[in-house]
């Protein structure tokens, strides 16, 4: 039976094996490639999307778990990059190689929805995504900046 869910507000349907990770369904069937593959075991967070508004690591999330739920990818976070987190990220020029940043932005947006004005301790605890370029100084600054832009 096909899995039916919503991606960036649009209905989507997948009739393959229900344990296929959501990441690959979104990347390969919906051609939304902003979410990245990094580790395949849910550690690095490059694949982070929102499922019903909460950040999820989709490289280990079977597509069946998205049944009936609303999935948001970096492409659907805002029109024209206008989400406060994207604006802050752009203002502070956070990315270097950029590969982790879609996931970082999705994780930060999720954090801000729960903690509108997060402390450094909140950021340390919640932002567990990995950045090999170590852009963490600007990630932290951009989260604080986004909190002000909201």
């Amino acid at each position, binding site marked *: 039976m*096909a899995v039916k869910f919503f991606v960036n507000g*649009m*209905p*989507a*349907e*997948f*009739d*393959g094996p229900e344990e*296929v990770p959501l990441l*690959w*369904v979104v990347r*390969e*069937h*919906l*051609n*939304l*490639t*902003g979410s*990245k*593959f*990094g580790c*395949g*075991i849910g*550690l*690095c967070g*490059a694949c982070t999307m929102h499922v019903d508004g909460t950040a999820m690591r989709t490289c280990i999330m079977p597509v069946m778990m998205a049944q009936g739920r609303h999935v948001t*990818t*970096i*492409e659907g*976070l805002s029109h*024209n*990059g206008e989400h406060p987190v*994207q604006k802050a990220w*752009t203002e502070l*020029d*956070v*990315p*270097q*190689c*950029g*590969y*982790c*940043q*879609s996931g970082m*932005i999705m994780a930060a947006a999720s954090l801000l929805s729960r903690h509108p004005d997060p402390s450094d301790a909140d*950021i*340390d605890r919640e*932002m*567990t995504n*990995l*950045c*090999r*370029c*170590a*852009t*963490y*100084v*600007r*990630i*932290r600054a951009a989260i604080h900046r986004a909190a002000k832009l909201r």
Partner: protein
Amino acid sequence: MSPVSRRCVLTGAALTAASLIVPIGGRAAESNYEITDWIAIAPSGEVTLGLSQPEVGQGSYTALPQILADELDADWQRVKVRFVTGKAAYKIAFRQEPPAQKEGASMSTTALFGRLRIAGAAARDVLIRAAAQQWNVDVAQCRSENGFIINARGERLSYGDLAAAAAKLPLRSDPPLKDKRRFHLIGKPLPRLDTVGKCDGSAVFGIDVMVPGMLNAAIKTARAFTGQVTAIKNEAEILKMPGVHAVVKLAALAIANEDAGVQHPQLPNLPRHNAVCVVADRFWQANRALDALDVEFDGGVAADLSTVKIEAMLEAGLDAEQGVTALERGEPRQILKERAAAVIERRFLLPHIAHAPLEPVNATASYKDGAVEVWGPVQSVSACQEAVAHAVGCAADAVEVNVTFLGGSFGRKIVPDYVLQAVQASKAVGRPVKLIRSREEDMQHDVYRPNAGGRFRAVLDDRGYPLAVQARVAGQSLFGAVRKSWLDHTPEGACDESMVDGIYNQSYRLPHFLVETVDTPLPIPVYFMRSVGSTAAVFFWESFITELAQRANIDQYAYRRNLLANDPLALRVLDAAAQASGWGTTTDTFRGIAYNCYIGRGGRFKTYVAEVVELARIADGLAVTRVFCAVDPGLAVNPNTLRAQIEGGIGFALTTALKSRITFANGGAEQSNFFDYPLLGIDEMPEIVPIVLPSDRPPQGFGEVVLAPVAPALAQALLHATGRRLDVMPFPEDAFRSRA
């Protein structure tokens, strides 16, 4: 073979897909006029600037066009950047080797600064001449400004209006360059041009490439570096799995080798097939089929490779009767022998480590009738072309390489082993194939940063400063493994200067000085990694200086200041870092200081760096709170991207100092993913205080320079705080525990 394609029906309007047309390669749009190899101008006035250097995160995508646009006097708001390849102008020489189009050795800005200025100025010159002709006035009455040529009467013609005429005029090889006081872009902290695409998901990395008719491949490689495929037991069943097209055995590749095909004399020949891939419609199908594939590998001739053996080799190398002399000044051997009882000795060790870019290596290749086109994260276009040409038997120029954004590389994606695998897979199935390595495959089949051990011995003079020093570094020689043409040949054997880079070429006052290397060859694929040998050598060297200063009971900063007294540029960064950090005003803060002059390959540049690492007490021990980093980078073309390299480079070095270690057993690497090869997290990232000193020197290399001093400065700070010497990287987890 039944290509049962899985369906994902979009009910309702189509989703907005990211643009997957790779914005690279090909020709400029027809309506663009090519003014130089680097610059095309559309009648609309839009300027397209060529970028020859892959963007791996270092910021070349912005800083290099900035140089062109400044000399061109272009309107920065109307500039577009396009990756370019295929012309001699895009190649640079790193040392004594043929010019190549690649990013590496922190060389891009240094090597291209002059060339891009001339290209921009030559284009501005023909635009001025075209305008002068149109107005029928002397060129001296015309000037350029922000995308326009303006004459003495104040009339203006846009670059778009002039492009057609300018493209027909001959270029001058020596166009007048701007006075640097007139730079309007160079030296400005401009925002990166690739930021927006990297914040909305539209930037195309290698893993995102889609080409028509493309299949996807997942790969499994023999665990042991010398292993090979011995049996595939269920190929028929695998071929029946949904979407699967083929199971392809892949030929082993020369180990990370740009000296193509040359084997180390002390190493065994490589096996014929060391990997197998499954090709399917979708990557997830290929991956599932690969999981189900019953494939057997043997361990090959070096199946007994292990960390225990490697470290024993290293220790033997450190204690060998003789090393290869890299440098000998004065009479170090005699003094150390005569004053044996006074010799201070320290030994150090660090392991092989993996690049671990967050984007695992991947490539898309299309092989058709002997012609090959490649798309992907490629750090060296030239190395990729040469390797593919060698593998398929065509001319290097016939290999078309389309460079995407690179999701990290740090040297890894210069080696095109993964590209060759995609080419083999495409050849086998007759269609374009994208091959993606899993994280485990990426990590267990990296081309590692070599291991190193250090044995340092010294005798101090009566004031406590070094009289005679012997610095020996042993380990798997990088040049010996992959770049034999860069070895220096001496009567004692081949010397690999990368092993002692940051030791033999510094300006410390050392009257009697011996620097030696000992190669311990291994069947482990190795390659250059960000900051190369200096990560090891500078950790050893600066930690040894720390030891000597402590023995002499002299302040660490003062000790270095004394030894570097004859090098004003060294003193400048050292003083700047010390002053910024409040050195000498310690309350409950522990600090460590380290210095390095990062010297480009072949002496192409000198970037001076001094860092102070600061620790503070936290509840359960110590934490790195701030790192002060003073640099003299020459002219900073873009201070924004330069600061980003300081911040990120220090974080990268902290991962190396605290976490990175690849160990070996049964012929292969033991670590496989981020749970056993962790990276620094945001909770461990200190505040970074950059101090960028002004300089009249041209731009010096920068992408790698801040890494090396981090570990020795941190070790010194921890020594002050805990009394414990740290001589092995990565530092043990309890190194941050406070002194009881």
